[in-house]
């Protein structure tokens, strides 16, 4: 699923490993999400949105 995680991470100066640790998954999973090769669970999508202080639909775009 298309997402803007790389941009949001860049704004905060976070690495994939930093984000992975913050939401409790592996760096490989963050990498797979950013490359649109893995769609996160609802729980993880909420955690990611919460981490960036926004809504899920602000981060992920299922229509794109």
């Amino acid at each position, binding site marked *: 699923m298309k997402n803007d995680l790389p941009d949001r991470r860049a704004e905060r100066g976070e690495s994939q490993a930093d984000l992975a640790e913050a939401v409790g998954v*592996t760096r490989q999973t963050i990498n797979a999400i950013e490359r649109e090769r893995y769609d996160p*669970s609802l729980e993880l999508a909420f955690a990611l949105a919460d981490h960036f202080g926004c809504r899920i639909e602000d981060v992920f775009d299922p229509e794109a």
Partner: protein
Amino acid sequence: MNVTATTERTHRRAYAGLWALSGLVLAVSVVAGYPLAGVAGFYLSALGATLVVRRHGGPLFDERDRRLDRAAAAQTLSLFGVGSAVLFPTLTALVALGAVEWPAWLTPIALFVPVLYGTYGAFAFLERRRS
């Protein structure tokens, strides 16, 4: 790519490698006639795999791994199911016609398939009752 990413990949490979090694050590030791040494080697290697997880600290496997595991398990079941549905009736018919002899090595596999699906059916039943 930072140190954490490299460490994660190294630990994941170490974990999988140690579990593979444990099975290999057990099999080789049993064949070589040292079964107790094989059991000790198996548990030592398995312990090493457990220590890798503890040393890593953060999650070494997560929801993506579980999803991949589920997909792989489903494909394995399908492969055994379709393969068995084609192979065993065909072979049984050929044996009945006297065209071929039933290979002895195939018998344990033929017995394993219903055990596999019986186990799957039991867990599927339990999961449906729980959800």
